[in-house]
């Protein structure tokens, strides 16, 4: 696109993703026709991706406060106090569309982008996680996408030297045409060294640092807000390539600069690069920016103002410095072999004025650019929740142990080792709980504190009943943190949905938010950051509603944490939490009956909290030697995972309860934990006193899973099934 010949035609406006009404609004704001650069700037600022125009009204309903919260949504990432003058800073973000088009680079740049959101606030990134959803294993593109995405995440995170410690992987035909790549980063900062993006002050130098600007991803932000069609291949040249080496240098250089006292404001250049970073910084600071694009370091020749303002080249930051500190700052960036250029100055005009080759290419009111984005309360229709299915109505399998083997060796429940062994999950020397447990734990460097982190959502529950699904996602994150011994602190979210202009999709969004809100409130687990990715549709087929939750918790002393591995023979296995044998939307039903029916398991938030609080107390008192929450696949899967993790078998007690055996073993009732303890009696009485259902379910020992009346299953066989599926799938053609 060239800067000349910019006659504003309806086609040009439509190409920029603006509706005719939105264009009218733009004309009213400017009081004249925009230049092409101005049109580009408005189009990205008003894109769904940057403006949250369809989601904002609903996101506002989420609780975001708590005594631990230092900074909630609205900044680059959320900030939570962890005591001793330290804070954890974290956020999750989607890179769905780019990863579908070019899985390696799409996923890699997703990781890079989320890390910048975290270190721009003064935090050293200390852990990365990733929540991945792929299409059905037998879909033609799935293998290629899995391979590229995993390699891209590893390629970036490994090189930067931040451990990738956790995440989740789903396969579901609902993602055949739109995969989801949600990357999360957790960082650590001192509370007196946190940096924000408000550029307060007039006459301050605006500095560009990092990589040079190229024609990468121009219109990425509008692409991320558009539906796919079969011509999406055409949009390919906008793919951005990540440079993790430069990111590593950028982290070190920024942190070195931050250690001094020269920064007024700092902001990464994410989606819509120079445009959104300068508008946000100017708007938050209540100032104007004069930008001289001749000073922008460019990688390619002949770049226009339009291209420079919209480029999404990676590994770049914008900094507003205290006047006079330019030389000090420049020396740091030059030491790290990064570009450094003063590209502008803050002004009292309240306008973003962009000049290039002596011409004013854009002159727009900052406030209007930032605040005037349309906000839609789009029509929505709620999803009708399906009826509950009684345990008796789901047929029993021919053999319980066959069902166990089928589930453990299925794409849904098989080991993700193939994924995380491609990630350096140990660099930085503080990964005290590696992938494979409920939450990963990284030690706070130089202390005994630990930060636990997890990613969770069960999309099939959200599809059936968005409200219960939204609740469940938050509750499961809380549970995974609890099961590792952490005090859950707060969450970030990544709301992945279809086209919000369709009322039923908007209804899914509204429902999930409603459920999340209830859970967040009941569990005191506020939302401190997040991201929305809409229009995940291809040819009118939307993805399952997927509100991915990233949870972070604090372990005051890592001597008191738990993991899932059964370590000792002769211990008692206890189940905490109510058993209802809920098989609706279960993996048992999906794998054994090949259908998804009924309501998902409901979440009782009051019980959830009570049960979790007891589990955490038991861990702190060292009363338990292993803990695992019961999630996908139900109780038998949970205990099998515990057995495999520790290499210790178990025998389940002969069941005398009211439920059909298969419903007891495979039901996905929520709010439950399995614990292993040397002395069970005391725990049983404590649970009863607290009003929590508890049952002794078996004993540890041997090298098999034994269920009364069934052929025992050797651990080795189960391990082979569990470990082999993914590597085998990935190596076949």
């Amino acid at each position, binding site marked *: 696109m060239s800067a000349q010949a910019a006659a504003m035609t309806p086609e040009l406006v439509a190409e920029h993703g603006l509706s005719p009404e939105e264009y009218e609004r733009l004309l009213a704001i400017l009081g004249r026709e925009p230049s092409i650069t101005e049109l580009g700037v408005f189009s990205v600022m008003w894109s769904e991706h940057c403006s949250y125009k369809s989601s904002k009204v609903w996101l506002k309903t989420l609780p975001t406060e708590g005594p631990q919260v230092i900074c909630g949504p609205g900044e680059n990432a959320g900030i939570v106090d962890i005591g001793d003058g330290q804070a954890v800073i974290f956020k999750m973000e989607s890179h769905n569309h780019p990863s579908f088009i070019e899985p390696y680079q799409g996923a890699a740049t997703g990781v890079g982008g989320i890390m910048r959101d975290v270190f721009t606030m003064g935090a050293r990134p200390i852990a990365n996680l990733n929540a991945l959803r792929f299409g059905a294993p037998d879909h033609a593109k799935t293998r290629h996408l899995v391979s590229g995405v995993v*390699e891209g995440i*590893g*390629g970036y995170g*490994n*090189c*930067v*030297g931040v451990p990738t410690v956790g995440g989740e992987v789903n396969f579901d035909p609902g993602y055949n045409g739109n995969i989801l790549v949600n990357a999360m980063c957790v960082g650590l900062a001192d509370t007196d060294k946190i940096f924000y993006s408000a550029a307060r002050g007039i006459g301050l130098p605006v500095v560009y640092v990092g990589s040079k600007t190229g024609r990468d991803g121009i219109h990425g932000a509008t692409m991320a807000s558009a539906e796919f069609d079969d011509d999406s291949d055409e949009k390919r040249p906008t793919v951005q390539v990540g*440079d*993790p*080496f*430069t990111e*590593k*240098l950028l982290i070190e250089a920024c942190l070195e600069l931050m250690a001094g006292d020269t920064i007024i404001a700092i902001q990464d250049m994410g989606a819509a690069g120079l445009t959104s970073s300068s508008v946000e910084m100017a708007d938050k600071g209540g100032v104007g920016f004069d930008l001289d694009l001749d000073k922008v370091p460019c990688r390619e020749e002949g770049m226009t103002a339009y291209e420079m303002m919209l480029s999404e080249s990676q590994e770049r930051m914008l900094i507003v410095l205290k006047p006079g500190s330019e030389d000090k700052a420049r020396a740091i960036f030059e*030491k*790290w*072999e990064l570009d450094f250029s003063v590209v502008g100055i803050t002004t009292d005009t309240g306008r973003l004025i962009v000049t290039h080759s002596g011409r004013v290419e854009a002159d727009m009111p900052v406030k209007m650019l930032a605040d005037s984005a349309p906000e839609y309360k789009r029509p929505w229709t709620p999803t009708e929740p399906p009826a509950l299915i009684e345990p008796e109505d789901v047929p029993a399998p021919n053999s319980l142990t066959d069902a166990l083997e089928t589930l453990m060796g299925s794409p849904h429940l098989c080991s993700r080792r193939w994924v*995380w*062994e*491609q*990630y*350096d*999950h*140990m*660099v*930085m*020397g*503080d*990964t*005290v709980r*590696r992938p494979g447990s409920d939450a990963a734990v990284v*030690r706070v460097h130089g202390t005994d504190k630990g930060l636990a982190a997890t990613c969770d959502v069960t999309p099939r529950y959200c599809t059936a009943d968005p409200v219960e699904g939204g609740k469940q996602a938050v509750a499961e994150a809380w549970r995974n943190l609890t099961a590792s011994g952490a005090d859950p602190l707060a969450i970030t979210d990544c709301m992945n949905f279809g086209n919000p202009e369709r009322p039923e999709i908007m209804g899914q969004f509204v429902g999930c938010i409603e459920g999340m809100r209830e859970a967040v409130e009941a569990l005191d687990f506020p939302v401190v950051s997040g991201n929305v990715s809409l229009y995940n549709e291809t040819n009118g087929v939307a993805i399952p509603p997927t509100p991915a939750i990233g949870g972070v918790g604090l372990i005051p002393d*890592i001597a008191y944490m738990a993991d899932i591995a059964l370590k000792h023979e002769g211990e008692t296995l206890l189940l905490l939490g109510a058993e209802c044998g809920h098989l609706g939307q279960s993996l048992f039903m999906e794998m054994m009956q090949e259908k998804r029916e009924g309501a998902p398991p409901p979440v009782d938030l009051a019980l959830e909290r009570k049960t979790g609080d007891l589990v955490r107390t038991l861990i702190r008192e060292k009363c338990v030697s292993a803990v695992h929450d019961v999630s996908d696949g139900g109780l038998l899967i949970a205990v099998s995972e515990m057995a495999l993790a520790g290499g210790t078998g178990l025998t389940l007690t002969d069941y005398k309860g009211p439920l059909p055996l298969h419903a007891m073993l495979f039901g996905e009732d929520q709010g439950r934990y399995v614990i292993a303890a040397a002395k069970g009696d005391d725990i049983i009485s404590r649970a009863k006193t607290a009003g929590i259902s508890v049952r002794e379910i078996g004993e540890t020992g041997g090298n098999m899973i034994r269920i009364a009346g069934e052929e025992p299953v050797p651990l080795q066989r189960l391990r082979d099934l569990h470990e082999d599926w993914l590597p085998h799938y990935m190596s076949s053609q």
Partner: protein
Amino acid sequence: MKASVIVFPGSNCDRDVAVSLEAAMGEKPAMVWHGEADVPASDLIVLPGGFSYGDYLRSGAMAAHSPIMRDVVKRAKKGTPVLGICNGFHLLTETGLLPGVLMRNASLKFVCKDVLLKVMRNDTDFTRSYDEDEVIRIPVAHHDGNYFADGETLDRLEGENRVAFRYCDASGTPSDDANPNGSQRNIAGIYNEAGTVLGLMPHPERLADPALGGTDGKPMFASLVGALH
């Protein structure tokens, strides 16, 4: 004992190894920027893991030309012990202090996991605190760890007893299954002729603290402190 850890652009295990060194020595090592001309007086020089220059072109190729490396090579030749871990091993081969090269893993994938190693010699400054033929568990994390040298070089390395560690199974037998990257003859680490320069792919600094799940890396640092204090 004084140790220096050389920091290159893209090094990312520099802090990790400094932590292990400090725990063993009771004193922080010097962190030396690659752009310096001289290494400060040191009893030990460590080239840490990471992705110097992004591992672009070839792992270690660009860092091998860093100004500091001239001095490192000089001192290594004069007998100062040099420990190169992972990317540091790449650097040692690129500078010619150690023979051979580390190629892309046979799986073509990055691999991060614990592996078992057989300690081939316990008579060097690096390994005195191990038993000979001891099997230890240490993590690897690399994309390019597939040790290659021509047959003659390999025979010479073995003949001169310069293989430091081999990937092996629990009984100490080097097997294909135990080899995480396709290295020839299951070689995980080698010495120079004098036994004063050690390059290895596994990361002893990653399992030198019980909180991290093991301490089999600790004796290497203890050996160095014992020999060099």
